[in-house]
């Protein structure tokens, strides 16, 4: 499996996802500069976390207009899988690859800690190693992770099975938006990650690459990269 990690000015989890991809795929990911016009031949595009362009406008808004984004949007529409994590999720939303918006956290502070996620859709490219309902532990680190979508959009996500993960308690109960402490940012309906309609693009605020190594306190995230390798060869 070949992978490409996009490096925007201000990306800072590009190396982290590079390490996780290298460990699972056994191949060196291509690090692609934001100002390039064309991606290399790749089976997966990774949009990493960070503060692209300082996030001085709206998070991800400027990066969504980088030169490389035209080719990314084209390839994504043609079916090349995209893993968009944290700032990458914000970029993907701004670029129109995923619906909704990411608002400042309800508590107005940056939050960094482990979160529990309930797997809402098992199988597919990204969640082939997770069971439906399985609780996994990733890490959040963001200021603008409060996922919002209007009523119609939310209904469409539900109908199409596009909600990938929800914030939950360690035993799998959602309801964090209502105040059980599981939802770190006020996201609507506890949504932590969503797919596009064809489930080839995954946007995720929590970082799978940060808990992909037992040395760092857990490896639930590694299963996502391993699933991609199984699906994409």
């Amino acid at each position, binding site marked *: 499996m070949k992978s490409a990690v996009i490096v925007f000015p201000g990306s800072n989890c590009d190396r982290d996802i590079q*390490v996780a991809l290298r460990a699972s795929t056994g191949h060196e990911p291509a690090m692609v500069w934001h100002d390039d016009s064309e991606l290399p031949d790749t089976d997966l595009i990774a949009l990493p976390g960070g*503060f692209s362009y300082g996030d001085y406008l709206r998070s991800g808004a400027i990066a969504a207009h980088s030169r490389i984004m035209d080719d990314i949007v084209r390839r994504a529409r043609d079916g090349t899988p995209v893993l968009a994590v944290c700032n990458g999720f914000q970029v993907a939303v701004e670029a129109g690859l995923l619906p909704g918006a990411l608002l400042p956290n309800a508590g107005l*502070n940056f939050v*960094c800690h482990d979160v529990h996620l309930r797997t809402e859709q098992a199988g597919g490219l990204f969640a082939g190693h997770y069971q439906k309902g399985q609780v996994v532990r990733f890490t959040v680190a963001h200021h603008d992770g409060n996922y919002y979508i209007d009523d119609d959009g939310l209904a469409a996500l539900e109908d199409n099975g596009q909600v990938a993960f929800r914030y939950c308690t360690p035993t799998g109960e959602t309801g964090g938006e209502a105040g059980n402490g599981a939802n770190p940012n006020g996201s609507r309906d506890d949504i932590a990650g969503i797919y596009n309609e064809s489930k080839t693009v995954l946007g995720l605020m929590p970082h799978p690459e940060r808990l992909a190594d037992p040395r760092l306190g857990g490896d639930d995230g590694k299963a996502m990269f391993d699933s991609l390798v199984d699906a994409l060869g």
Partner: protein
Amino acid sequence: MTPGMTGDTPRPNDLMGLTDSEYDLAVDIMGRVPNHTELGIFSVMWSEHCSYKSSKKWLKKLPTEADWVICGPGENAGIIDIGGGKAAVFKMESHNHPSFIEPYQGAATGVGGILRDVFTMGARPVANLNALRFGHPDHEKTRHLVAGVVAGVGGYGNCIGVPTVGGECTFHESYNGNNLVNAMTVGVADADRIFYSAAAGLGNPVIYAGSKTGRDGIHGATMASAEFDDDSDAKRPTVQVGDPFTEKLLLEACLELMATDAIVAIQDMGAAGLTCSSVEMVDKGGLGIELDLDAVPRRETGMSPYEVMLSESQERMLMVIHQGREDVARDIFEKWGIDFAIVGKLTDTGRMVLVADGEVVSDIPVTPLVDASPEYDRRWTPSLPPAPLDGDALKPPDSIGDSLLTLLASPDICGKRWVWEQYDHMVMADTVQRPGGDAAVVRIHGSNRGLAMTTDCTPRYCAADPHMGGAQAVAESFRNLTATGARPLAVTDCLNFGSPENSHVMGQFIGCTEGISEACIALDMPVVSGNVSFYNETNGSAVQPTPAIGAVGLIDDLDRTATTALTNPGDRLVLIGDTAGHLGASLYAREVHRTEAGAPPPVDLGAERRNGDFVRGLIAAGQVTVCHDLSDGGLLVAVAEMCLAGDLGATLEARPADA
């Protein structure tokens, strides 16, 4: 000659912080009356912040050498050999005054400045720590300051993508008018690719890279060299404004350029901006410099030479590169979208000549500016150690359980999760032990080895007995590193005190420094970098003496470490070291009995070392996997913290007095 006159010209009314005698010395060096720009340069170079004029004499006594020290004090940061061809580069620095005036930007630029000190030397920063001291939680300003400082620390570190893994956050009314913000960065470099600041090579071009120069932070170093009064808010324009995004680009561009052979010398523009960086580079190289101020990238029009030279705009680097390599450097900085300009060249005149609009606007001999800087032997009075607190003076509490709850709920001991969860402490994916333990552990990227790091100081002890308090701060850092299984290697010190012109404060400074020195020698932890911050006082009321120690240790095998969290029911707890029942200057006495009286517990450095080496050996042998040092709150709080971290309970057996 009329008093107050120099030759025929009266002294100006505004000496920009220089004393009369310092001004006269500047006139002597110049052989004439310095103009406005030149006076500004003398003023910042001779400020306490830049010249260490009150502390130099005493800092010379600190131990700075060991076989593993690659670079001690005097450069941007200290460097130690950590094996495997790698070096750890680290320093802690204060940003107290700006953070009190404008907490968000003051703290943010403190983090930005210390990061630059580390990557200037060729290291990739791998961790930040912050030692924060605030006034009493009930004081009207505290909440505003805490919120601003924590957001500023996070805002900068989170954006640039360096994990903030540890530090301290404590409260005491002596900081009501002067909070302390001490930022530490640890970086890792290839031991054979380290960059220094000494300029070399006649005719080599001087390069400016980074943010444009604006009117922010002018005379910040001078501001940080004076105490506060009721009008300190008016000093807000002397605070710099941070841009972590630009710093991230500057970091990556510098590391990319450092992988080539273009750079001769490099120095970041921190305190006193372009002035201090250029003077230090050419002084260390024994050369002269000519700067074309019109070439300096600017944020605003109409800036005077004085403003350009004294601006402390952030995220800027000055470097000397080999002639003919200008295009290599330009290409890299342009790729990263960073301003790049050739602003001057090295000369053999020994003078710093500034040219603007084709005219020489300043011409100062470099060596006298640096070497003739004032050095003071300030008057000092030793602090007499207080009498030990009579144990009977404190009535035993009715309930030990209630006392424990009081201690655990006190602002100094209670969990600081609410602080460090606002910091990204896991970016870079090498944080092995997160904040909340004795020391943070960060993996050396791509290896199975790690660096342990901590900041420590107990100002209560330093106030009661400066010598013992200074030694205790080093001993606690040694203990905290040891508790993770790390071998302590070296320290950086950030010495925060009131006015050195007060003999009592000067006595505290000397006492603490001597204590640090004694402990560093006994524990084999040389001081490789550091910073002094005086004038932490408002309307004559000084902070408690706070010599913060930042310490770094090495873990050879990440499979052999310890954490504070109890893991297995049935395990036995063993207490190492003597318990003599010291309650003087304790947190227990302060929180439960409302007294800070008494002498601090004496530090037995020999026992400290023996016990530490013994415990470290047990951890390395795999016999101990859970370990916690005893500090504020003593044994009971330590055990409670171990239980809370592991979500387990413990039963303690009181040993009979005669056993």
